[in-house]
């Protein structure tokens, strides 16, 4: 039960990362790998502020803002200095490694004695249970900390997803979605596509950093290496989410992305439980995304050797 609750909690926390990746990769079609650095930036900023006694809500909010700044840097490099999108992300991600070390002052910041959102959630559960530090659920012993973390993660993700959904339906949010779809059209309708891309990447990396801040508080430390491969993790969640919901409407896609993250984390937990070497985790994740990207192409070709696009052109000819 502890494994299940832990997997659910981490899956929910990382769904913020997945939502960020969804924004950059799917909404803006921008291969933004800044996320590998901004998730660590979020963790670093939150952890550093928490050990200095800053309120966890403020520390988490500061992490979100820091992530937004990182995204804005990538967006600015790409839109104002005409640097290739992928390279812009690589530059900022590389720079963030040093920034994160400076923020933390060392490579790892433990949060063992700090008040975090998780310790607050734990205290709330203990208080609800009349002082008990664990309770029985369907015959399983559940620690108040695990239950509190799961409940807090769930509440946070529902709130963020609702705000994101609402935002993407506003005038500004709709213009952002349209920019990823057809930049020529949005310019003709009076929208600066450069501004939209920069703002979109800010929001995306803000969400990723928020995920990092919550992850650090959940696992009790921030580490300078924790961001490696996280973009691929987020992409895997988005792909699973798309397969789960099967439609491209905004609400289902956001819900699907969250479900994808949770499901992916559960699959990983099960695989680890069955004896998967943890060292192979990133390799397996990368292979999964590779297969998810390549299989639809084969399905599109119908295994005839012609690409889907060529087939479609032939049909129109």
């Amino acid at each position, binding site marked *: 039960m502890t494994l299940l609750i832990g997997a659910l909690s981490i899956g929910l926390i990382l769904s913020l990362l997945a939502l960020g990746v969804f924004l950059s990769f799917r909404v803006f079609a921008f291969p933004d790998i800044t996320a590998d650095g901004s998730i660590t930036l979020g963790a670093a900023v939150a952890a550093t502020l928490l050990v200095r006694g800053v309120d966890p809500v403020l520390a988490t909010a500061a992490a979100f803002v820091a992530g937004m700044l990182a995204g804005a840097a990538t967006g600015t490099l790409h839109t104002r200095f005409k640097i290739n999108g992928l390279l812009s992300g690589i530059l900022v991600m590389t720079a963030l490694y040093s920034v994160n070390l400076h923020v933390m002052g060392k490579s790892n910041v433990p949060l063992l004695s700090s008040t975090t959102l998780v310790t607050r959630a734990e205290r709330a559960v203990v208080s609800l249970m009349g002082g008990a530090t664990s309770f029985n659920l369907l015959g399983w012993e559940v620690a108040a900390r695990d239950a509190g973390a799961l409940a807090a993660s769930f509440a946070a993700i529902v709130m963020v997803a609702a705000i994101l959904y609402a935002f993407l339906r506003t005038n500004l949010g709709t213009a952002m979605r349209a920019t990823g*779809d057809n930049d020529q059209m949005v310019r003709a309708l009076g929208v600066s596509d450069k501004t939209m891309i920069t703002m979109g990447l800010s929001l995306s990396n803000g969400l990723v950093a928020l995920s990092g801040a919550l992850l650090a508080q959940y696992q009790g430390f921030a580490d300078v290496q924790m961001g490696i491969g996280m973009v691929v993790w987020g992409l895997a969640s988005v792909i699973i989410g798309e397969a789960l919901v099967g439609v491209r409407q905004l609400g289902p896609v956001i819900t699907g992305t969250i479900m994808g993250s949770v499901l992916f984390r559960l699959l990983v937990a099960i695989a680890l439980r069955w004896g998967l070497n943890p060292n192979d985790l990133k390799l397996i994740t990368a292979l999964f995304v590779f297969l998810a990207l390549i299989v639809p192409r084969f399905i599109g070709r119908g295994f005839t050797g012609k690409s889907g696009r060529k087939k479609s052109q032939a049909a129109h000819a």
Partner: protein
Amino acid sequence: MLELRGLRKTFNPGTPNEVRSLQGIDLDIEDGSFVIVVGTNGSGKSTLLNAAAGTFYVDQGSIRIGAHDVTQWPEHRRAKFIGRVFQNPFSGTAPNLSIAENLALAARRGLPRGLGWALNGSLRESLSKEVSRLNMGLEHRLDNVIGSLSGGQRQALTLLMATWRRPDLLLLDEHTAALDPKSAEQVILVTEQVVARHKLTTLMVTHSMHQATTLGDRLIMMHRGNIIHDFRGAAKRRLRVPDLMSHFEEVRRAEQLDETAAELIRTAYV
């Protein structure tokens, strides 16, 4: 009013691919005028429209729309005054957004885009009413993604989007060229209605001689980045397809003479 003065634009200057697309264009278009632009391929018709829209900055010259000198304005800023319909039906709409969301974006052309809802009850009602004027039955499909519609339907919606907020200048760049004849006819009908209803100042590029002679109150013919004919008033009304064809024939003959002269020079001196 649109005022173009001494517009020059050269693409790939100083390279073997250098193209002098606009070679000193002077053009005034009065408010409410519907101007047809014709010309041979590569004559600079679309470049003229794109220069006005701000797709690129011109090398020389000035562009004024009403009281504003927009020569150095970026494309999105000029959009406050300009409505556009592109040749490709897929260029004017966002395929993954719904019909209603696309129109809602157009409803705020030139206005700040804040955190208000893109779609509200009253806007949705107006959308439904305006879309029903197209007679395509799309008013019942406002929540469908626009990518699921045909080229003709998308182009008619793009026209509606371009004119939702009355533009000071409407630019139509061969907007029926990629459509089947029936859809093209339908879109032209909508174009005539919209332009006439709102008395829009319009610049329309076309390759259709029929459209060129039956639509608009003025016609300009371009060749090699210059305006070589300008028919207005009675001269435009008298213009028939054979007349226009004869003007194109003149251009073709002049080209041939140029070629012959070039060949003679090559033979004599090279």
